[in-house]
């Protein structure tokens, strides 16, 4: 198993390399001179020259890439063009709301989706199954911000259950924190849940057709035990996989949800940076998000060996 983990770790390196090359080339993909792009439309030629020298943009491209990678490897993502604050500090300032939102959404999604998927699979062909499938297709067809606004309209504007927008840190009290995070995490969780519910149902349906499930029923185990101990455990590999793959969806959703609910997190930071063409910040955040995606999917792959000992590598 350790050999597998090491092999899987090594396989991540070229993928991370591709991300790094893409992120680095962003600045050079933009039409025109990167130094002029950074300097903005009102810059004097002298300023452009200064920026070019400061950022080392006058050096050959492979040297620039090497230097940049060296910095990134040392945890230095450069400085923001506008605020001139190190990107790592900007990220650190904004990471808490995003982390809370993402974690809450994952919880909402799993708590919603797994029981729904299980119920649909057990009652396959009935109206319950049909209802869950409708939810799964519908959840995948609505943009997250539309769900967000519907929730705000229903629960904040009309009935004043939750604040309309904004984020309260958990340090300022658990209750206000929960109130501020509920609607955004439900909005984002619904979309994620649609994906997970669908896979849970499909995967469980496959397992329920196996002989050992019939055996378990035959030896007199209650349905609850058969489902949780025998079926769900064996159906878990595809479910965990989709939770991992869905992280990309979740990160994309975070970017939008934060704009809807006015949450000052990394999603807002990246949107603001894109609109302002603040390249070092964009590059830093993409590197970080992709890194998280790669690490989570690495963990998902490693978890297979624990979830299903039959899988050997």
């Amino acid at each position: 198993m350790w050999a597998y983990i090491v092999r899987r770790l090594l396989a991540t390196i070229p993928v991370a390399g591709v991300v790094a090359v893409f992120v680095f080339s962003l600045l050079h993909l933009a039409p025109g001179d990167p130094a002029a792009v950074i300097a903005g439309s009102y810059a004097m030629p002298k300023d452009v020259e200064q920026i070019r020298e400061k950022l080392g943009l006058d050096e050959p491209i492979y040297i620039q890439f090497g230097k940049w990678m060296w910095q990134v490897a040392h945890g230095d993502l450069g400085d923001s063009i506008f605020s001139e604050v190190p990107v790592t500090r900007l990220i650190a300032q904004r990471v808490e709301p995003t982390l809370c939102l993402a974690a809450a959404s994952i919880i909402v999604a799993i708590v919603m989706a797994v029981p729904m998927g299980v119920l649909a699979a057990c009652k396959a062909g009935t109206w319950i199954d049909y209802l869950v499938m409708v939810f799964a297709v519908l959840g995948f067809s609505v943009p997250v911000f539309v769900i967000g606004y519907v929730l705000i309209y229903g629960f904040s504007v009309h009935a004043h259950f939750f604040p309309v927008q904004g984020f309260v840190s958990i340090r300022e009290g658990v209750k206000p924190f929960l109130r501020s995070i509920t609607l955004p995490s439900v909005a984002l969780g619904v979309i994620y849940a649609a994906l997970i519910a669908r896979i849970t149902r499909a995967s469980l349906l496959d397992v329920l057709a196996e002989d050992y499930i019939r055996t378990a029923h035959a030896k007199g185990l209650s349905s609850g035990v058969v489902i949780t101990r025998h079926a769900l455990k064996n159906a878990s590999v595809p479910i965990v996989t989709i939770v991992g793959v869905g992280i990309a969806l979740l990160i994309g959703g975070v970017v939008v949800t934060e704009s809807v609910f006015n949450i000052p997190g990394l999603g807002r930071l990246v949107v603001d940076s894109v609109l302002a063409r603040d390249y070092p910040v964009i590059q830093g955040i993409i590197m970080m998000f992709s890194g998280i995606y790669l690490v989570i999917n690495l963990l998902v792959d490693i978890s297979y060996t624990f979830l299903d000992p039959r899988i050997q590598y």
Partner: protein
Amino acid sequence: MAQQWSDIAADGLSLKTREAPLARFREFARRNPTVVGGAAVLIVMVVLTLAAPYLSSNPFDLDPIRRLQVPSAESWFGTDNLGRDIYSRTLYGGRISLAVGLGVAVSATLLGLVIGLISGYSRSLDAVLMRIMDGLMAIPAILLAITLVAVTSASLENVIMAIAIAEVPRVARLVRSIVLTIREQPYVEAAVSIGTGLPKMFVRHILPNTMGPLLVQGTYVFASAVIDEALLGFIGAGIPPEIPSWGNIMAEGRVYFQLAPWIIFFPGTFLTLTVLAVNVLGDGLRDMLDPRLARQM
């Protein structure tokens, strides 16, 4: 006697062809209700948006006195902050959103097909191409798209290109997996052994086998492209704001959301209906083209 039989057969045949179109369609609809339902809603959407000039007024007409009007008999979906008719804007906006969906579906499918074919056939290029695809997949699609739009410039073509690039890896992976399965089939071995050239092999044996799954994948790409366009527009990093697309109309409604929720709700409903129809159509096509998969999902 023989004469008689053939006459009866001919009669039966002609009877069949006379009744065939409608009866066959009914039979098809009974077997694939999702395909027919999804396609019907999609066709209605396409017709509505194409017929926009005949069904609605000018989406750019300003009428500041009638700004932020509630939906009424006069303006069915209400008006926005400049007094523009949301109904007209929604219909015209559908043109842009559907064009983005179609443009992305076609270009991502074609590009993914080429990459998938190459990497399914050449072991040396496979490793390189798949690492690039994995790398692209590691960047969340929305983030990739907004960044690409930001570094190029906001235009319809660039938005289509940006969303397409984010969608290509999935298509390429699908095509590659199909090619890898097909090349092990006995009939491909047989074709190789009688000296079939590579071009003919692709056209005769490989391509036809990818068409079904590609069509299904194409519908999913279309659906997510329409959503992605809306998200990009909403964030303000999409098609130039003066062009009404569903995303852009909703983006303008953000500020007035508490006063005039209809600016977001009507285009949102149209968008959801469209994406839902396309997704349902895709599921139906998948079940129709590959009954084995249908059992699994």
